[in-house]
Structures are given as C-alpha cells and as structure tokens.
C-alpha cells in the first residue's frame, strides 16, 4: 500500500524500467516429478507441522467435539446422554437470557473496539518518537494490561460500588451517590469503561509499532509539500497504518466478544443480569448449571459469529487497502 499522492503504477521513464515479472509456468513446462516436489516441500511441512498439530489438537478437535455435544443434553460428567438434534439451537434463539447477553456483548464489543482503537491510535501518535517522558507514559498506558482481569474487576468494583471510593468521596462532599454498579445503564457503561481501560494499552503498542514502519522520507515529503499535521496524518500516516488498523480492530473485537472474567469479578453479571455477557452465560450454563450440551451450542454460535465478523472485517479492510494502493 502507498499514500494516494505517490504513484508507482504509471509507466516509468527510460531510466526507470518497469519491473520484470517472474516468468509464469506454461502448460508447455513439464511438471516436476512428485518425488522431487515432496522432497522440496518436506522442510516446509516439518516447520509447519508442530503448529498444525497444535491447531488440530487445541482448536479443530475441541470445535468438533463441541459441535457434537451441542446436539446432546450432556451434563458434563454423566456416563450417558441423549441426542437432542437441533433442540439446543432452537432453545437458544428463544432464550431471553441469550438475547440479553448478546446485546450486552455487542455493546461492549462495538463501543469497546471503537474506543480502544481511537484512544490507542491517538495516544500512539502522541507518544511516537523519543524522549524519557514518552517512554514512561507508554509504560503507564500499557500497565493495566499487565494486571489480571480478575484483579482489575475487583479493583474497579472497590472503586465504583455503592460504598466504594468514589461514592464515599461524593458522600463526604454532600453529593448524591452515582449508581455505577446498581443501575443497569451505569453498570454497563462502567464495564465498558474498565474493559477499554484494561485493553487499549496493547493497541497503543501495536499502533506505535505500525508508526515505526512509516518511512521518514514520506513524512518529510508531506512537510515539504506544505501539508498540515492533520493532512499528513490523514493522507500519509493513516493509509500507511491500514494493516495495523485491521489487526487492532480484529484483535480487540474478538477479545471483547469473549469478555468473561472481568464481568465476573466486577459485577457478577448484575444488577439483575444486565451486565451478563455471552461468554459469562456460556460458562454459567456449562459448569454452574451443568448444561454442557446447551452451552456447547451457545459456544458454536459465538464461534460462527466471531469467524464471520473477523472475515468480513479483514475482507473490507483489504478492499480498502487495495483502493488506497490504486
């Protein structure tokens, strides 16, 4: 990808001949013997093998098992179970708890992804470059990510609960308490805030890494051309960061669609289930209520949604990157 004001596809002048394309194999070229091809591929297979084995063992097999279990009423430990066909999936789409959890998850994922990326990109641009203060600030912004989700949940719950630090200060100042964790809207907003607080540090680091890849000559050229800081950011920096944006959006979205532990520690899904995320519901149904079959169906649906979203986002970003290149 290139900034839109730099053209590389126009015919080159005589002293800049077009790049020679690699000769393509035609049907006249005799194919190499299978033995030779296999021998050549062996090192690649050996190198990919362990990763492939891990993917099969820890992703493919569990998904297949979960898919099978989703058609049963298995409770997680009984010796037998009954096949239910698609009953679990039918029930899932009529379960008000699932609808509520899907809504909560969607809010956290969409708002959180936007906030993490806007905040991450903004701070990365501000902190790009050298200087001790910038290095310290980078560490500070990344620090929440180092803490475990459960610790973060308990920490913020102690700060935001009705008798927590903030409300104690408000009471001391003769102000009304703010129902951070007792009002559904406030509680959801509090969860989103804490999710963003604990996540965006990674985005800052990833965007900083992306910023390091932008050639200084491009920025210099923009400055010489008289571009303002905003124009430079919009016309040069942002297009160059397209791959970073894609990675950041997909990573955060997938992470936020699976938020569980932070909610457990911070609100335990309350008040009245209004911060219960989809992943929280899956865990509750499986190990607390012993409905492994039903929870597996919920997991499969979540997996499909995440896969579709990730593919769509990556495809859209690729299209947009290609448009920029052209």
């Amino acid at each position: 990808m290139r900034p839109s004001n730099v053209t590389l596809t126009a015919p080159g002048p005589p002293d800049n001949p077009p790049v020679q394309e690699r000769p393509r194999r035609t049907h006249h070229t005799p194919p190499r013997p299978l033995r030779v091809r296999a021998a050549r591929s062996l090192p690649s297979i050996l190198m990919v093998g362990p990763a492939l084995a891990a993917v099969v063992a820890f992703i493919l097999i569990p998904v297949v098992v979960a898919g099978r279990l989703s058609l049963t009423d298995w409770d997680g430990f009984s010796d037998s179970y009954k096949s239910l066909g698609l009953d679990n999936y039918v029930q899932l789409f009529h379960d008000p708890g699932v609808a509520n959890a899907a809504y909560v998850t969607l809010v956290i994922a969409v708002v959180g992804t936007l906030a993490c990326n806007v905040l991450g990109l903004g701070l990365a641009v501000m902190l790009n470059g050298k200087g001790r203060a910038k290095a310290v600030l980078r560490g500070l912004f990344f620090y929440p990510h180092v803490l475990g989700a459960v610790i973060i949940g308990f920490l913020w719950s102690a700060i935001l609960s009705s008798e927590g630090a903030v409300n104690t200060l408000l009471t001391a100042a003769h102000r009304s308490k703010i129902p951070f964790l007792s009002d559904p809207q406030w509680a959801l907003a509090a969860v989103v805030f804490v999710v963003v607080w604990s996540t965006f540090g990674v985005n800052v680091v990833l965007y900083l890494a992306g910023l390091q890849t932008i050639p200084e000559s491009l920025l210099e050229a923009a400055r010489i051309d008289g571009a303002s800081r905003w124009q430079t950011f919009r016309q040069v920096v942002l297009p160059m960061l397209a791959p970073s944006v894609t990675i950041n959006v997909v990573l955060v979205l997938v992470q936020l669609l699976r938020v569980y532990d932070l909610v457990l520690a911070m609100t335990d899904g309350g008040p009245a289930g209004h911060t219960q995320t989809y992943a929280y519901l899956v865990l509750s149904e499986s190990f607390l209520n012993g409905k492994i079959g039903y929870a597996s169906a919920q997991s499969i649906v979540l997996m499909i949604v995440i896969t579709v979203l990730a593919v769509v986002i990556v495809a859209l970003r690729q299209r947009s990157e290609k448009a920029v290149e052209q």
Partner: protein
Amino acid sequence: MVSGSRRHLVKLGAIAVSAALLTGCSTGTDSAGGDRNIRMLVNITPVLTKQFYKDLVAGYVAGHPGVKVTIEAPTGRGIEDTLKQQLAAGSPPDVLAGGQNTALAAQMAPLPDAQWVKDAPFAEASKLDGKVWMAGTGVQLQSLVFYNKAAFAKAGVTGTPKTFDEFTAALRKLKGAGYTPMQTGGEWTTGAQALMMANPNVMNTEPQWYAKRNKGSVTFAGSNYAKYLDVYQSWIKDGLVPKDANGIKYQDMINNFTAGKSATMVMGNWLTASLAGAKPGFDTGVFPVPTFDGSTPPQAANPAMPYSVLKSSRHADAAIDLVKYLVSDKKAITKALSAEGNFRTGYSYKTTPLTNDIAKLLDKAGGKTVAIGPGLGDNSSPAGFPDEFNTQVQSMYLGTTADQVARTMDKWWAANAPK
C-alpha cells in the same frame, strides 16, 4: 442414548479440552511407598481456610499411619463447578466437603447404613432413591434477623417483630430515626436474603415445596413466595431497604451494620464470627424472620460442613473412614461447629452470647428446620435456582413487580425442572 466408542471419543475430547483449559495439575496419585492419599476438595471461606481443614484432619492423619490427606481449594467459582471441571478432566477428588446438588449425587458413593451416618445432621434429608450420600457435621441456620439494640431503642421499637406487619412498622420507625432500616446488598446476597425470609413462611406448611414444584403441584404465584415478594416490593417502594442495594458488596453490608449505619440485617449464623471480629459499639440482638400469622417459624437451614465420598475414589474405604471421623469424632465436630458458630444436639463449645441466643431460637422452633437455597435430596430445586431467584429479586429494584417475579420464576422452574 449414545453409548460405546463414540461416547468415549466425545468424553475424551471433552476431557482433553477441560483438562487443558480449566484445571490445574492435580495430586491424585499416591506417594511413593504405597501410602494412601485422600484428596479432599473443600469449601473455602474467610473462616474455613485451607489451614483450618489441615488442622481438622490432623487428628485423623495422626491416628492412621500411611494415610495422607491433601486439602484442595476450589479453582473455579466454588466447589461445585470445580468438581464438575475435575470430573470432566477425569481427576475428581476422593472426598467432597461442601453442599452439592442432586445432579452430582450420582457421582457419590452411598454412605454405609451405620449409626454414625444416621446420627449425622441432614443425612436422612439428603436421601436420594433411599440412599444417603452426604453427612453433615452440624446445623447452619439461615433465617435470622440480626439487629442493633441501640437503634431499636432510639427508634422506640420495643420487643422484636413477630409478623411482617410488625416488622414493616418497625422498619418505618427505624428509618425515621435516621437508620438504613434493613441492610441489603447485591452480589449473591439479594436473592439469598429473600429466600431466608420467604422459605420459613413457604415451607412451614409445605416442607417438600421444592419437590412439589418439580411435579408442578404448587406455584410461586400461588404460594407465600408471592405474598413475601409483595412485602419486599413495598419495602423497596418505601425506602426501607437501600435503593442502591444492587451495588453494595457483601463485606460492605457487614461494615454498614457493624458501623451502626443500618439497624437490621438478615443473614445466616456464620455472621456471628464476623460480628465478633468487628466488635461493634452496640449490643447485637437476633430474632427469627417474621411470619405472616405471627407463629414461630421453622429455621431455614443447611447441613454445616457436609461430606460425601466420590464413587470414583480409589480409596473409598479410607475416604469413608475419614468422613466418619469428621462427622462423629467429638473433637473434630466441636472444632468445626465453633469455627462458624454452628449447632448440633449434644455438643457444646465456648460461645458468644449472640450464639447462645441463636441456639435458643432453634430450641424454640423445636429444632424444626426447612430447606434453603438449592434444597436437599428429593426436595431439591433445579440447578441454577438460587442464581435465577437472585437475578429476579434484583430486578425488583429496577421496577419489576412482585407479580412478574413470581410468574417468571414459575416459567423458569417449568423449563428447568427434572423431566
């Protein structure tokens, strides 16, 4: 039904996933030399620490050379989901210390038809298909109203309320005197307190209410649950409970009560340990939850520190022997009872005046107890009932009516009752 190799394949996969994701390393194998290692999964609380259990079993270990007891703390939210994870991973403990549900009973070995089992509290009540699979150490009472005596005096409340009408009137006076009349909170406490107040009123006439609800012969909407929920709704409306209850943590509830901010708090007898530790600057009294007709209610109660033996145990005899020690050895029982302030006929320990008052309430009720929370044995609720009830009661603070809660609970129970 699915059986054979396919079932094993699925279980194998599930075990692999669960083992990889959900459990840590276990210590199930015997130590060198053929010594027997009994793994005991225990319920950890601020009072019942891992060290407490180590001390508890020390007497047994000392008297049984070659037997080692490993105390394991839950790695999940509690012992129940930890046990499910361990079962799925194929690495369950030998002994389970804590409440279980009917679904898990199938994983337990029946306890022998012995006198020590018959004498254990709630052993009979936990019977499933005629077999005893759990033995309690003592009785844990869960429908007690703790109150600040100074607050009652200041508000002009004389005597302790016996009916809900009297209780509501007392709460109004306490509000007028500047107190939070009743200390409620969020987390698990919202629904738990509601059950603590409702169950003695529901089950004094229908002791097997859960079993009857499973059969569909009783309903929430047509029971004293609905009547109690009406009272609760009026308390929320009149500000007799904190309007921000859903955001209050359990520890903050205790802190508010011991700081003298709130006048009453419904809780189980384990609260005495916290109150003794906090040393509030007032005398604390206790009375049983009120009834609709003013009669003396039974106490909603649970077996305190119950034990079961897993049928998969490789040392079932030794495990049962350990359980026998824990529920019949005088020293072990007394140690367990005193830790939480629990009770058992024929056993005494150095108590606080408050614990003595609670013992008198149990005596006054003629020792009659009813189920609380998930219930026991055949009189058990479907898995997830306390959580669902908690959610519904919390929703009353957000505008859901008592009538809606009762109807929702009936709908939930119908969908989740054992078929």
